[in-house]
């Protein structure tokens, strides 16, 4: 039996699993495909229903991961091969090239200040720009720059100005082999691209954005410095609509997300409240089918949204969004449930709440692990009632959104992360003696 384990995915679920396993005495290899851990939670502004600043409560856990002696962070890395069985897995991990020496870089940022080349900032959902050499986000862990070779024009300025001599143009990808006793998968989710639903105009109409884009706009570390302004003209939107279930609960074959994504109703209400806190004069309407604010504290939160913040809830799934080209304002067409007539309302900004789906690349990872996926590409539980965290492979567990929309909010992801730590401890931490 090995005393090392692997966690694939450094979002909140993976971080919690790593910390619980590390504190239990296991050596944890935390593999994360992006250059920093943090996942989706790092991109959010605030979390429901407590309205905590998301990165503020996440960052201490991220730093704990970095400093816990039992955790080895393997960021900008991917799992390439898995052999063996429970207790004895042999895993090949590919460390991709940052072209920056992780042991030398102290994240000072002087290189980025001097870099002449720009690219869309993925962390800000491409709403803003970053340099070709960049820090994924201000609180990134590890605090190391990374060069995006596709945007790099090889001018060499970064190398010239770097005080730590950390630029390494010759860096090669490195493959390492690790022996682990068990694996937890926590690869999280991607947002569905709503441009596939042409009648909502995403990608075509400037002021139709996704909820994650809204989070980045509201966030003080985002592309607008936390000012609520709309993309077309930078004006403060005075009339905002949220549209729920864009892609979720949708049985059309080319969309294929018939499930409920579980967290969108909750975060929409949260975002609506956040918007009112930023701009009390802005009016917010939420268009929904069923308001799935379930669980402890959420109904109370919705009550508050209605009574205290005056948020309008319209039970109707809009048919179409059109644009007034002179103002770039949007017109939402929907059936008014109380009068049963077709109405249209004008909005400055429309926020789509898209379905949440498995992360890109998960299919490949599942093949490497030999783990089954369900019809929607999520990791399939061995038994959704009795063994929800187990996969079909003994020794490989899953937690967080990669398991599917099993409520998907932060406390449940954390519980699942701890849960997989428990499952692993059961098998690998058996003590001898009476």
């Amino acid at each position, binding site marked *: 039996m090995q005393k090392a384990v692997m966690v694939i995915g450094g979002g909140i679920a993976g971080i919690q699993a790593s910390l619980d396993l590390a504190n239990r005495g296991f050596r944890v290899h935390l593999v994360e495909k992006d250059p920093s851990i943090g996942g989706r939670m790092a991109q959010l502004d605030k979390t429901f229903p407590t309205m905590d600043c998301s990165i503020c409560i996440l960052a201490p856990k991220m*730093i704990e991961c970095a400093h816990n002696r039992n955790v080895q962070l393997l960021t900008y890395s991917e799992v390439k091969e898995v052999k063996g069985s429970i207790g004895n897995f042999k895993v090949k991990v590919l460390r991709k090239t940052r072209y920056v020496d992780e042991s030398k870089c102290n994240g000072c940022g002087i290189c980025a200040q001097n870099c002449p080349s720009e690219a869309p900032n993925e962390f800000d959902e491409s709403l803003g720009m970053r340099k070709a050499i960049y820090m994924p986000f201000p609180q990134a862990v590890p605090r190391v720059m990374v060069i995006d070779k596709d945007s790099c024009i090889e001018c060499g300025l970064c190398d010239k100005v770097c005080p730590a001599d950390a630029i390494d143009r010759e860096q090669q990808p490195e493959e390492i082999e690790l022996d682990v006793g068990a694996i937890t998968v926590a690869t999280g989710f991607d947002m569905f691209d709503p441009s596939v639903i042409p009648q909502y105009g995403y990608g075509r109409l400037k002021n139709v954005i996704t909820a994650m884009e809204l989070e980045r706009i509201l966030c003080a570390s985002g592309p607008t410095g936390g000012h609520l302004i709309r993309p077309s003209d930078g004006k403060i939107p005075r009339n905002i609509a949220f549209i729920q279930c864009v892609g979720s609960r949708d049985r059309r074959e080319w969309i294929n997300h018939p499930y409920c994504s579980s967290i969108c109703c909750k975060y929409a209400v949260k975002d609506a409240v956040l918007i009112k806190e930023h701009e009390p004069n802005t009016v917010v309407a939420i268009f929904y089918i069923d308001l799935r604010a379930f669980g402890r504290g959420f109904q109370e939160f919705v009550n508050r949204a209605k009574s205290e913040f005056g948020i309008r809830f319209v039970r109707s799934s809009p048919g179409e969004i059109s644009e007034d080209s002179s103002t770039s304002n949007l017109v939402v067409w929907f059936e008014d449930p109380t009068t049963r007539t077709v109405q249209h309302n004008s909005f400055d900004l429309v926020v789509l709440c898209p379905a949440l789906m498995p992360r890109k690349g998960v299919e490949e990872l599942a093949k490497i692990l030999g783990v089954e996926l369900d019809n929607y590409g999520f990791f399939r539980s061995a038994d959704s009632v009795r063994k929800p965290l187990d996969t079909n492979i003994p020794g490989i567990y899953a937690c967080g959104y990669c398991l599917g929309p099993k*409520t998907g909010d932060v406390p449940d992801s954390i519980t699942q992360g701890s849960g997989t730590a428990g499952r692993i401890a059961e098998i690998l931490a058996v003590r001898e003696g009476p």
Partner: protein
Amino acid sequence: MIEEPRVGVFICHCGVNIGGVIDVPGVTEYASKLPGVTHAEHSLYTCSEAGLAAIRKAIAEHSLNRVVVASCTPRTHEQLFRETVKEAELNPYLFEMANIRDQCSWVHTHEPEKATEKAKDLVRMAVAKATLLEPQTEPEVDVKDASLVIGAGVAGMTAALSMANQGFKVCLIEREKEPGGIVRRLYKLYPTLARSSEVVGPLVKAVKSHRNIELMTSTTLKEASGYVGNFNVILTTPNGDKEANVGTIIVACGALNYRPPQGLYQYKVLGKVVTQEELDGILRRDDLGKPERIVMIQCVGARKGEIRPSALEAFPRSDTAELLRKILKARKEEGWPYCSRICCMNAIKNAILVKEKSPKTDVVVLYGDLRVYKEYEDFYKRARDLEVRFVRHIEEIPPEITQTPEGKLDVAAYDALSGLEVKFKTDLVALSTPLRPRRGEVLLARMLKVPIGTDGFLMEAHLKLRPVDTNVDGVFIAGTVSGPKDVSESIISGEAAAARASILMGNKKVRTDAITALVDEDLCIGCGLCEEICPYGAPKIEAGKSKIREILCRGCGSCAAECPRRAISMRHFGDHQILEQVKALLAPAG
């Protein structure tokens, strides 16, 4: 104060976060001239490996005996710097931080000169306190490698097995005669429609036969005392009281199905109005027959009333029983404020079971919002494919139930889509009611000093970040005791609580922060106000004096503030240390 202070000051640029606003070299120069300061330097990122190494080097080179770091927030970095100081063989509590980022450069970005002056003030204050810091020892206690799990439902059994498999001894107590909890009495479970015995059965078999688990049924917790690693519990068993000593406790005593008061929707007035729990029993006994129609009403006694989510904490003091009595009384009239999460799925499951048994029965579900989350949408579709009718009604007008002359029931509701009144003549009405907290939980919570939320369920330590921990170290919660959950969610939380508990037991020792309360026994008059006000149960009056159990103390300072004789002071935050900071602030700058 022991020796002559030799303070080292390390000022951080934090990239441009601090350095872009504050004249860091200037502040460093200023710091180097402060009384008590032996050495001052600045670095780009003090928390980087290079920065930390520089601190260690300076401590050795200049024989520093106090360290001040002026940088970001102690919330994220204090631990890191303390450890660095420790590695340099200096007591980690001889370290003080000045936050010149969040509290200075970030909030005064547009006034660099004033921000620099403020940074100097903050550094001067930190240095003043540092000169009066004393070494502290972190209290450490042994953790017994045994756990008490209260409640042998699916969550409790899962937790017990997880810990037992790791080799820890588990005492699993259950107040009923048989383990299995609420799930044992259910018929079939969603979404697989597995029989509940398929879930409960293997768990019960496993806990009964595991050599590390002692299952005690018909047993309740009578008394609990002690602290993390060392809880003393007295259990009331059918054979008298039994004492046990455990390192951790997991509370998994579940919740109950709410029974509506008599008369609500004619419950207990007309025989054909039942709860979903009772319908479950009917299906299990195969007692359904072939009714023409069944109407289900959702959210009976749930999602009622306006309770603000911000007022969520109630401490288990003498007023909790009163508080819960008030809540329960209100609930009797209005219902519970929360959404119970599982009732929509539960109704759909029962609807499907009815259809399977009796396909010609018309099943109508009256709902406001149908909260079918996750991939359970497929289950919902299955019900619709079986022609279960889901009718959204206007919730604000509760349906009216009357008896027809033929002995059937008439259900009158308002259809939300058309706005018209609809009437259903039905053979049976099933009310979907929420899971509600057990009344006995109040006593349990008081015994263990775990807070209860205004909804009556036990409170987790942090709603987002610590869902299975409680405020009391060593006490964890699992299952529906902290809020409604379905079976898989309960099982996951049982696993999680066990994982967290086993960290403590696996490490055999637990340490806490040294910032704890200190009692001057000469001044103490044993009035007991500290014991009453402490949220963590740390002070105890023994022989007329207050004794602080440091392992429980969180350093909140409430006792020190409350003490009428000023007999309690806080280690590392003594009056003299804080007053020194005040004096340093008011002293002429520069």
